[in-house]
């Protein structure tokens, strides 16, 4: 019953988002963004509903969702932490920062901490290269991040 209610709720929200976006030229990308912004991820169970509305096969929807790094098919933690792995951040010690984060959070990339607080993701450039290494927490960027700064960010996210 609980599940059914959730599924009905999900279908309703999907339906509203689909009718809002389906008439845009090239509607699939804006629609997927809207779904992820609204629900937190793009559930695989939504593919057939999206496909029907946009005249696409489930395989085509699946192909697009999985092609792009930004889209997730599973619920993330309450916060998403992205660590930049690109060259500029590497030149300022991002590898050590990555290792520190993985150790402290006890997760690898694309995983969520056991308390559901933080999902760890890799990112390739946040455009903050003059202040490397850079980290993004949800939608805020942090520059010249040290291990201590990272600990503080994690503590804040868990508070």
């Amino acid at each position, binding site marked *: 019953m609980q599940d059914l209610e959730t599924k009905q709720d999900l279908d309703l929200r999907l339906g509203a988002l689909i009718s809002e976006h389906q008439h845009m*030229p*090239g*509607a*699939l*990308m*804006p629609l*997927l*963004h809207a779904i992820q912004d609204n629900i937190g991820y793009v559930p695989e169970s939504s593919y057939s509903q999206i496909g029907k509305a*946009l005249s696409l096969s489930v395989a085509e929807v699946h*192909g*697009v969702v999985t*092609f*792009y*790094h*930004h*889209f997730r098919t599973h619920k993330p933690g309450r916060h998403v932490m992205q660590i930049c792995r*690109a*060259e*500029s*951040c*590497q*030149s*300022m010690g991002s590898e050590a920062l990555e290792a520190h984060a993985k150790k402290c959070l006890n997760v690898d990339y694309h995983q969520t901490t056991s308390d559901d607080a933080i999902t760890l993701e890799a*990112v*390739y*450039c*946040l*455009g*903050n*290269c*003059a*202040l*490397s290494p*850079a980290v*993004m927490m949800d*939608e*805020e*960027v*942090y*520059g*010249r991040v040290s291990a201590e700064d990272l600990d503080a960010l994690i503590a804040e996210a868990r508070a």
Partner: protein
Amino acid sequence: MTTKIYVPRDSSALSMGAEKVAVAIALEAKKRGLDITIIRNGSRGLYWLETMVEVATDQGRVAYGPVKAKDVPSLFDADFLNAKNHPLSLGLTEEIEWLKKQQRLTFARVGITDPVSLDDYIAHDGYKGLKKALTLSGAEIVKAVTDSGLRGRGGAAFPTGIKWNTVLGCQADQKYIVCNADEGDSGTFSDRMIMEDDPFVLIEGMTIAGVAVGATQGYIYLRSEYPHALKALNEAIAKAEAAGYLGDKICGSTHTFNLEVRRAAGAYVCGEETSLLESLEGKRGLVRFKPPLPAIEGLFGKPTVVNNVISLATVPIILDKGAQYYADYGMGRSRGTLPIQLAGNLKHGGLVELAFGITLRELLYDYGGGSATGKPIRAVQVGGPLGAFLPESQFDTPLDYEAFSNIWAVVGHGGIVAFDDTVDMAKMARYAFEFCAIESCGKCTPCRIGSTRGVEVIDKIIAGKDTAKNIKLVRDLSDTMLNGSLCALGGMTPYPVLSAMNHFPEDFGIAK
């Protein structure tokens, strides 16, 4: 009388605490009963000095930085509202040597204005280029862009005017202007700065492009990693629409131009123009075969101008001041200025706009201040993850498309990433292959398979297994990728790999 205080809203400034500084200043002024107005400007691009706070005085704007929220009470105690001295004083902003020596054309307003104030934009020469364009024919506008010598700032350096001319010459019921704002190269942030810190200049440039070639719809394809740019662009577009600078009958003319921001989703390959178009159409970002060129069959099969942010944002000043004014800057066939981004292991990272022709050494030491760690700079990667690594012996190369091409390197988007002597170049070569493997669209075999095999072979070299044989294998593989890939991702990954091997052989276990 109210005192104007400037605190940047640029995301790099925010990454150093600008929001907290702005809040602290507002609170402190209230506590002391002082009348101030805080303007959230863009960043001047002196990122090591962020948060850089400026106070408007009769002599001009006076700067303080880097300011932390905890410094705010002492700034008030020192009477910074009257430009008095403080340990963080930097003097008149325009007199700061780093800024004073620059030649800012595309970035003329960046850091000076409130990015989302249309009035401020117009007060600082905004929309002069569009007004001029509206008095010209499409062919005349395209000629101005061609005569300026402007080449694509996205990486391929193709002449912008030629692209526009092709679209102008096409007969179609619909044409498009697409701005490639999927800047994903490490070490580059000039697109982000334009979009966050002067979004109207991009909007104006795209509108001019639309008027020139007869396109009525524009799309900005924006990186999902840039949420602040999204906000600034949407705010600016709404204001431009409300004031008649976008929509039907722009500025009372017969022209129509509508603009929409579309979010990308973290695929590096979508910075390649045909992948980008596929993505905008709602598909996987697979590279298209060329021909047909996007200028002839682009978005939804219609003639489309696809340009980078900086190319489009440079158009307004060319129309305003004239093609010759712009072309007078630069050297050889690299005309005008380049917004150069200093990044990585440098003391003073930030945005430097200068005419083509300055050398890397001047940029790294006169502007960059040497390495942040104080160790010697050993390697510099120019032009993003597909750019070559340059050793110290090549630091005197001038920034010029042809000069770089002569040493088998690329200027690309003008991003410069410095590494000190702790860098392991075999690891960097491995990373280049790894990045290509993660980001390949998978359509062509050299890129899809070559990148994965590349990682494996480099791993063997790093482990010291059959070094000579495996070095030869990497060279063969690179040759296939260079000549057999469909786009620049697979086709240029050999640049960082081979340049690392050629210039730093000792890191691969081979004699120098």
